[in-house]
């Protein structure tokens, strides 16, 4: 093998020094920023994919709720009917009159009405529940049953939440009845 000359040894030494410098520059000035960019991009991708996954799940859930309301159609129709049929204003102004006319048609003459405190929870937008006690001081069992049947068939918005029937001391066939009626009325804005 050829022996290296002094000049060549110097050149190799110089080349080696330059190589080390170059390698340092390559690692710290070229590869290191790339690694930093890669780390940043990877963490951003991980962060964004989590966010996107959660967002898509949330959007899907909301759209499922939107489309999965099985009562939507029936409720919309019910609201239309309620808006059309329920009179405006306080129920005290129209409900006793309406019920008096109804019971008169059923040949039950005496009635007393008493409102109860309204429940606090408002389940239906634009409407509230109104509770009324209807007292029928002297009524026979059969007309009472018939009247209740007609009331339940005609007035879908009304529901009887309690019923008391007591025999009166005077006559065996005549009863004292008391109904608690829950009905929907328009809430005042």
């Amino acid at each position: 093998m050829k022996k290296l000359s002094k000049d060549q040894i110097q050149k190799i030494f110089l080349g080696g020094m330059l190589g080390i410098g170059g390698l340092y520059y390559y690692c710290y000035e070229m590869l290191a920023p790339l690694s930093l960019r890669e780390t940043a991009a990877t963490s951003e991708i991980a962060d964004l994919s989590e966010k996107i996954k959660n967002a898509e799940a949330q959007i899907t859930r909301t759209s499922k709720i939107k489309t999965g309301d099985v009562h939507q159609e029936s409720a919309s129709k019910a609201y239309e009917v309620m808006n059309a049929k329920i009179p405006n204003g306080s129920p005290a102004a129209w409900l006793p009159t309406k019920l008096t006319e109804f019971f008169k048609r059923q040949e039950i003459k005496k009635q007393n009405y008493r409102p109860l405190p309204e429940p606090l929870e408002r389940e239906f937008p634009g409407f509230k529940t109104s509770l009324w006690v209807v007292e029928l001081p002297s009524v026979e069992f059969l007309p009472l049953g018939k009247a209740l049947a007609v009331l339940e068939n005609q007035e879908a918005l009304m529901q009887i939440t309690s019923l008391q029937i007591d025999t009166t001391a005077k006559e065996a066939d005549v009863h004292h009845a008391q109904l608690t009626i829950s009905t929907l009325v328009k809430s005042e804005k």
Partner: protein
Amino acid sequence: MAFHLNLYHEIHKQAARERRDPFKLAMLAGIVFMLLLTFWYFYRMTSVGSLETKSRNMAHQWTKLEPQLKASIEEEPKLLARQGSNQALVERLQNRFYWAPFLERLAAAVPSHVQIVALNGDVEVKEVDTKEKSEGKKAKQKTMTMLLRGVAAGTQPRTAADEFRLSLRKVFSEFYSEVSAEFDANSLENGVEMVQLEGEPLGTATFRIRLSFKPAVPPAPPTPEKSPAPKKTK
């Protein structure tokens, strides 16, 4: 065999020595190493670039999704509230308890030797968890409680009252579910009065029966399986 004399052997040796020149080999190795490093750098740059492109695309996707997400988060409670109110309204309209058929069945169930003197009925509404518990859905379940106060007459008036209680349970089990008919505590007592029923003097017993049930129709009993048709014998 002919004798071969290489007159150029010194020239050949010099050429071989130049080929194995360590300086040149070191230079060549340095160049190859530099090329490898350059190749690696470009490879890394490309892969980082593609990652950054992916990240940018995702950021773009996120900027599109973010307003939708905000709207969805704002909308969800409103939708749930509306869904709940729709369900409550439909249930209110469809799952009413009808008192008239109940009174009709009660009147038919009371025998001639029993008289009901008072009826006190209430609809109790309870919220129960549904299958969709994770979504926070609750269903309203109605329980009817009827307190019947009455008088039974008979040679064994207490037995007559108990038979009436059992018959109430049987009759209403056909129409409602989870029917229970029990005497109120210490409510079954012998009466002091005697009554005449079909010309016969009978003792009386007063009672208070607590009848409770759920308005839902009881499940139909399972239909018996059809037995296979008998094989025809020749």
